[in-house]
């Protein structure tokens, strides 16, 4: 009986604490909270951090202009720890407890694919900044919008570039065994077939292994003219270092961006350093992009982090920008209204280019091809955006300095 009396004050405290929590969250009198799911920890933390920097810059800009609907904007982060199941929990937490009107994220295609059904069921609009796997858009959900170009566009842009620069005939694909890797593998396999290229080898690998030499040896034995990688950053560095060790010498090292397009990749301290040289990558954006505001974003990013941004940070920035534009023109934070406004949105000029979503929620974003030249990403395709000429064929390892 005594114990029972002890329970009562506990319950009272819990109730008060719970009510306090509830009152402080969501869309209250003075703030609008926007939900963000990304990978702040775990193996994709480098990209999650890039996201966070991009969001931070956009948030400062929005609040400097007085916020939205007269209220200050706050970001409500949920770290998915680079695991899809955590991303799903994150959406539940953000929607059910924090009552956010809209969610941005996640980082990886794997996590994003996992949360699409959840936002659809909860009827919350989701803006996808970076997930390139085409199956994140393939569910027919009316609640998802994607800023970046998908894996299909990566494949066609790469093949376009190759056809106009030496027209190679044989191709090998090396891809990670995740949603991102396999989506790019599938897109490239289909696009290569349509373009008449001979796919001589397709390798799938387990991420974060210390040794890929046998895999690269297999590729070497097939002697392809082009190798197309779909890898995250850590493996991109390991793969290129070990490609030198096994002396894999294709004419073109190409890639589906991501690890091969990360700002860290050409640096010796956090990437592949000199082994990154001459690799081609698709890219969604660069600091040198022609769109208005690109170089300003680069400067702000540099002031914040002392490094230059890759496209992942820009895509996060653009995602928050478009979310803010939708809330602003909807004059509401009601999810349904925000979603309907996103459908109509048409931003002619942003640092990420024009933004407008088609019926499926996809933004028609052009894909660039870059090459690492002298430790820098240089745009080499398409011709109207090219800064430098591509260096082809890739010099053999034994002939490099």
């Amino acid at each position, binding site marked *: 009986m005594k114990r029972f009396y002890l329970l009562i004050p506990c319950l009272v405290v819990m109730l008060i604490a719970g009510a306090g929590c509830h009152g402080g969250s969501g869309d209250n009198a003075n703030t609008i909270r926007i939900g963000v799911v990304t990978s*702040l*920890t*775990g*193996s994709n*933390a*480098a990209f999650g*951090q890039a996201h966070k920097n991009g969001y931070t810059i956009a948030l400062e800009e929005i609040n400097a202009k007085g916020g939205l609907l007269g209220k200050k904007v706050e970001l409500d982060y949920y770290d998915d720890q680079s695991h899809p199941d955590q991303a799903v929990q994150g959406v539940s937490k953000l929607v059910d407890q924090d009552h956010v009107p809209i969610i941005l994220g996640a980082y990886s295609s794997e996590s994003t694919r996992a949360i699409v059904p959840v936002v659809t069921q909860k009827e919350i609009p989701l803006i996808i900044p970076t997930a390139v796997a085409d199956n994140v858009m393939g569910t027919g959900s009316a609640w998802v919008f994607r800023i970046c170009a998908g894996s299909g566009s990566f494949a066609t842009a790469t093949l376009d570039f190759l056809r106009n620069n030496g027209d190679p005939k044989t191709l090998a694909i090396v891809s990670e*065994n995740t949603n991102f890797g396999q989506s790019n593998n599938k897109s490239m396999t289909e696009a290569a077939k349509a373009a008449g290229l001979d796919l001589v080898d397709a*390798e*799938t*690998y*387990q991420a*974060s*292994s*210390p*040794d*890929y*030499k*046998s*895999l690269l*040896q*297999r590729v070497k*034995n097939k002697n392809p003219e082009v190798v197309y990688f779909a890898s995250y950053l*850590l493996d991109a*560095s*390991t793969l290129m*270092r*070990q490609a*030198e*060790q*096994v*002396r894999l010498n294709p004419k073109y090292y190409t890639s589906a961006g991501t690890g091969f397009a990360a700002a860290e990749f050409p640096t*010796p*301290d*956090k990437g592949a*350093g*000199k082994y990154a040289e001459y690799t081609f990558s698709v890219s969604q954006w660069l600091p040198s992009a022609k769109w208005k505001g690109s170089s300003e974003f680069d400067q702000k990013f540099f002031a914040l982090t002392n490094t230059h941004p890759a496209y992942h940070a820009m895509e996060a920035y653009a995602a928050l920008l478009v979310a803010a534009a939708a809330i602003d023109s909807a004059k509401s934070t009601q999810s349904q209204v925000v979603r309907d406004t996103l459908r109509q949105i048409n931003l002619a000029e942003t640092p990420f280019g024009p933004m407008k979503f088609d019926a499926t929620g996809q933004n028609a974003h052009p894909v660039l091809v870059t090459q690492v030249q002298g430790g820098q990403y240089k745009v080499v395709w398409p011709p109207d955006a090219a800064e430098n000429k591509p260096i082809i064929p890739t010099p053999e390892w034994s002939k490099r300095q």
Partner: protein
Amino acid sequence: MLSSQGRSCGSFVNWFYSTIQAILNGLLTGALYGLIAMGMALIFGVMRIVNFAHGAFLMLGMYATYVLFQTTGISPYYGFPLAGAVLFVIGYATYMGLLRPIRGQVDFMVILLTMGLALIITDGVQLIFGADYHQISIPLLSKNIRLGSQISINAPWLVSFAIAAVLAVVLYFVVTHTMFGRAARAIAQNRYAAPLMGINVNQVQAISFGIGSAAAGVAGALLLPVFYLFPEVGNQFKLKSFVMVVLGGMGSIQGAAIAGLVLGVVESLTSLYWGNEWALAVDFVIFILVLSLKPSGIFGSQRA
């Protein structure tokens, strides 16, 4: 006719060199696997403890070496004893402070305790160093030893192979030829009779746990230059070391060392012939086959 013959001959030569190269790569990786597994096998042999924090200890060894490299510029190939010393102390303290009080309880307690410890260590490192990955850059990394035009060995892997091999022999000698080793084996054979022979069981077990942890730490230090580190990096090696300890005969340290080399070569050849995505699957197929067909392990039934 001639040309087709020439081609098939060429492809045979190619196949031959690829296989030799894959076996070499496998042995180089396998030596590190072996060192990790020996540490785990020693702990299991003497204490019947499955140390789920082994991967976290390996990660701590990597961070210790990384911090040393960043602050003093000392290469991991000279700095690895530090990782060993730090991990010895951590292992010793873990046994004395955490495991000794629950000795004699059900095994499940030990599993929960080491799993919890692994989580605390991983999250603690994340708090201090952040979740971001790090790598180090030393001149040796870009050195390759080329044997003919086909075979190449990356110098850092060769150095770590040599160090791991020497340490494995030393560890084997310590267990088989010293008073400590004899005491450890006596405990492994009969935990209740050993103290009656005047063996300080707690002391010997704490030292064994320390040495086992140090082996993981050194392996981490040797892995650092050719890999990268982040707080969760130890997990994949933890799983593999279970496989090797079972393969080598639960608790046999020489068995674990050989199992490491075998697993390295099997993974490498699987990756060459079937593709990299099969390598991990083959690891666990071996694991299940050994457990169901020869639970005492493939190599020797004798325990540490």
